[in-house]
């Protein structure tokens, strides 16, 4: 318990350093664009592939489980949309990104630590925490919500495609379900969640990388710890944010 509190304290101090006034904004702008490409654009493929299959599987499972003359078929489309918007495209995609982006951030910064690249920045008088971590946080907080939107659209398209390809339900019913009782606030809710999750993934992974010690083995350990810690914190904040934003 004491160790967890110590870690939280170190994390808070690190975030204090990260959010101190940047040395030169033009440098940070360039780095933010680079990070958007490395952490955001490069995650589009993975997000799209997982979303299309999950959307299709949700539609299949709904149609199998809701097979009854008393249940209108459009509810399958409705259920797919709600599942994609409320949970999959924010929480599950965030967990997947914690694995991909989180481990990449922790190992990148961890390697920089053990190969003295961070020391080199400090010697130059650069606030290394801010220089390395802030652009990553800004990039993911702005880009990950876009991935959530993309995931929603592709997941819903996956559901539609499976209904057309298998004939398991009438595609028009699916579309009717997608439009049924749509509340735009659900999208706002998922975007807010995703922005929070982006911050959690990036800052926690950077924290574990920044304080990595020793050799390449330790970088691997830091990377694993980053993914585990990010995933747990995501689940905790999913509960908290749902309580605050939806209830």
């Amino acid at each position, binding site marked *: 318990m004491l160790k967890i509190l110590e870690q939280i304290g170190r994390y808070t101090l690190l975030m204090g350093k990260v959010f101190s006034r940047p040395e030169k904004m033009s440098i940070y702008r360039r780095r933010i664009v680079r990070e958007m490409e490395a952490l955001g654009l490069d995650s589009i493929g993975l997000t799209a592939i997982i979303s299309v299959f999950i959307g299709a599987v949700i539609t299949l499972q709904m149609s199998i489980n809701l097979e009854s003359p008393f249940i209108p078929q459009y509810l399958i489309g409705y259920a797919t949309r709600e599942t994609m918007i409320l949970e999959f495209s924010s929480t599950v995609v965030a967990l997947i990104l914690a694995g991909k982006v989180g481990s990449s951030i922790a190992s990148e910064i961890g390697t920089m630590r053990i190969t*003295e690249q961070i*020391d080199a920045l400090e010697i130059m*008088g650069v606030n290394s925490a801010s220089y390395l971590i802030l652009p990553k946080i800004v990039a993911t907080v702005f880009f990950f919500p876009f991935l959530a939107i993309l995931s929603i659209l592709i997941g819903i398209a996956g559901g539609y495609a499976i209904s057309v390809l298998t004939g398991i339900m009438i595609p028009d019913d699916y579309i009717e379900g997608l439009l049924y009782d749509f509340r735009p606030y659900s999208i706002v809710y998922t975007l807010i969640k995703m922005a929070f999750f982006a911050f959690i993934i990036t800052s926690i992974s950077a924290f574990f990388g920044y304080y990595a010690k020793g050799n390449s083995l330790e970088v691997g350990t830091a990377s694993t710890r980053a993914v585990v810690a990010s995933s747990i914190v995501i689940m905790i904040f999913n509960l908290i944010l749902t309580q605050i934003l939806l209830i």
Partner: protein
Amino acid sequence: MITAEHISKSFEGHTVLDDISAEFETGKTNLIIGKSGSGKTVLLKSLVGLHPVDSGTIRYDDTDFTALGFRERKAIRRDIGMIFQGGALLDSSTVAENVQLPLDLFTEQSEEEKRARVEFCLQRVRLRNAGGLYPAELSGGMIKRVAIARAIVLNPKYLFCDEPNSGLDPQTSIVIDNLIHEITHEYGITTIINTHDMNSVMEIGEKIVYIHEGRKWWEGTKDDILQADNPELNAFVFASAMAKRARANVFSGR
């Protein structure tokens, strides 16, 4: 000039530096030598502020470096260049971007001026056409030369080198040593090199401080070192067969 006065440093109760005092002279290549684990890297990193000392004072000319906070140290840090053991180049940046980074961060120069300065520094370390390469594409010697180029890009007053020859063949080591020596004299820099390479000591050592078990055991010049009457230092200096022969020659008058 950089002066260390009675500095001590310990990690988790284990004393690594014990009451070290030394003066590192301007315009000279000052060498810190000693066995692996003797504390010379900790001493070097303490001098640049990467390890805060437990007690003692470090002065850069007339400024008490140990009394300054992070922001106040910035002014001095801009006068410091450092070459790390592994080069410590940013892996995700090209050679030119690595060298340009201090200019981007601390000057208001135009892109053209910065490019010209980067080109000059790369040319100075004889790496004219390597600007577009990434660190992973460079040899060990080239990495060290890029690190030197990055260290001198802001015209530093102080240059620190942590084992600049580690992992290099003897010929490349001499090239790197001579380059650092030339730059030191060309720009009148206070250079401190941390090494256990006796070739470097005999080639470029103008002032030498010998560290053993975290304490300063000896200091002098490369001319004094072969005749020093210090058993610990002698054991270190004459560890290699070549050095033993050199000593025999000195005493036989050859």
